[in-house]
């Protein structure tokens, strides 16, 4: 899922400075699960903004809502009526949600309340780890199910660099060397011979380099 973190509160306050009445919109999907932008965070953030603005002698009115998902145009309807009354929306969804808000409610500013961080999973309550870089050209079948793009600090495709020591990456002893993990897993699977095969230079065109990506599923589209 998408992992996000709340923006520093002072940044949020600065964005909202010109406004007296806003909609604060959470999202019920990934950011709820990663505890950054669900219904609970909407309440807490709204209180924080109100208290700060009250203290500054410049009160703000905040309408609170949480959409089922902010990443589907259909759910934008849930905010339609509320948007009529406000000057702007602060969305604490991922970047997709903020943009869909901006696109749907074209005449009002949409501000991001979160920094969308990466694609990952919760290791435990409160600990999230990146697993996928959405590069668009998966090599997991060659690398023992461990992604060298997202998990190797240098995104190397053919074995570790010289900075791998005791199974850890040279950038930090808290980071596992992805190639060590790949080696261990392939060994466990009895498929070490995979490593003998050179993975050719990767087509990065499917990654960020080719401009905004889009997938069209003609089979689903009809």
């Amino acid at each position, binding site marked *: 899922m998408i992992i996000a973190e709340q923006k520093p509160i002072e940044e949020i306050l600065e964005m909202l400075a010109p406004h007296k009445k806003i909609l604060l919109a959470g999202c019920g999907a990934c950011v709820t699960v990663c505890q950054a932008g669900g219904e*609970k965070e909407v*309440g807490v953030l709204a209180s924080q903004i*109100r208290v700060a603005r009250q*203290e*500054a002698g410049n009160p703000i009115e905040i309408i609170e809502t949480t959409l089922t998902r902010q990443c589907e145009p259909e759910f934008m309807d849930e905010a339609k009526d509320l948007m009529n009354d406000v000057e702007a929306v602060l969305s604490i969804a991922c970047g997709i949600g903020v943009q869909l808000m901006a696109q749907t409610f074209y005449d009002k500013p949409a501000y991001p309340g979160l920094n969308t961080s990466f694609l990952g999973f919760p290791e435990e309550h409160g600990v999230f780890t990146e697993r996928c870089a959405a590069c668009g050209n998966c090599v997991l079948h060659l690398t023992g199910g461990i992604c060298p793009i997202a998990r190797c600090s240098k995104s190397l495709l053919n074995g570790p660099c010289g900075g791998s020591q005791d199974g850890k990456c040279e950038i930090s002893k808290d980071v596992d060397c992805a190639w060590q993990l790949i080696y261990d897993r392939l060994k466990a699977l009895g498929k070490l011979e995979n490593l003998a095969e050179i993975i050719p230079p990767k087509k990065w065109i499917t990654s960020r380099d080719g401009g905004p990506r889009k997938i069209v599923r003609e089979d689903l589209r009809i």
Partner: protein
Amino acid sequence: MVSKNPKIVAFCCEESGMPAYEHAVSLGLDLPDGLKVVALPCGGKAETGYLMKALDEGADAVMVFACYEGNCKYVRGNIRAEKRVNYLRERLEKIGLSPEKIVFCPVAPASGQRFAELVQREVDTLLGA
């Protein structure tokens, strides 16, 4: 501006904070009238939303009375509460408010004296600020 009789919300764990409050009352100790006491089944039930809501509604300060570390009936509820308080204190500071508006206070059930002292200390901090 903080009034002479500040409004303080005390979220009290039923296992420690609440008995300590009652102990303080039974000893006839001086507690401010502006004190509002909310009992919770565990300090860990003092959710971030409650704490912020109290300030939002106009409380001058929020205190969380929970069990000492290593003595929570629900293993680590008290630590959760303390972490939430620390998180909010950081946020308050960043928005230009005194972090002393939210404090975490571990207490034992039979420590009414400490309860009253901590509340008084908070009142003094608020008035001094």
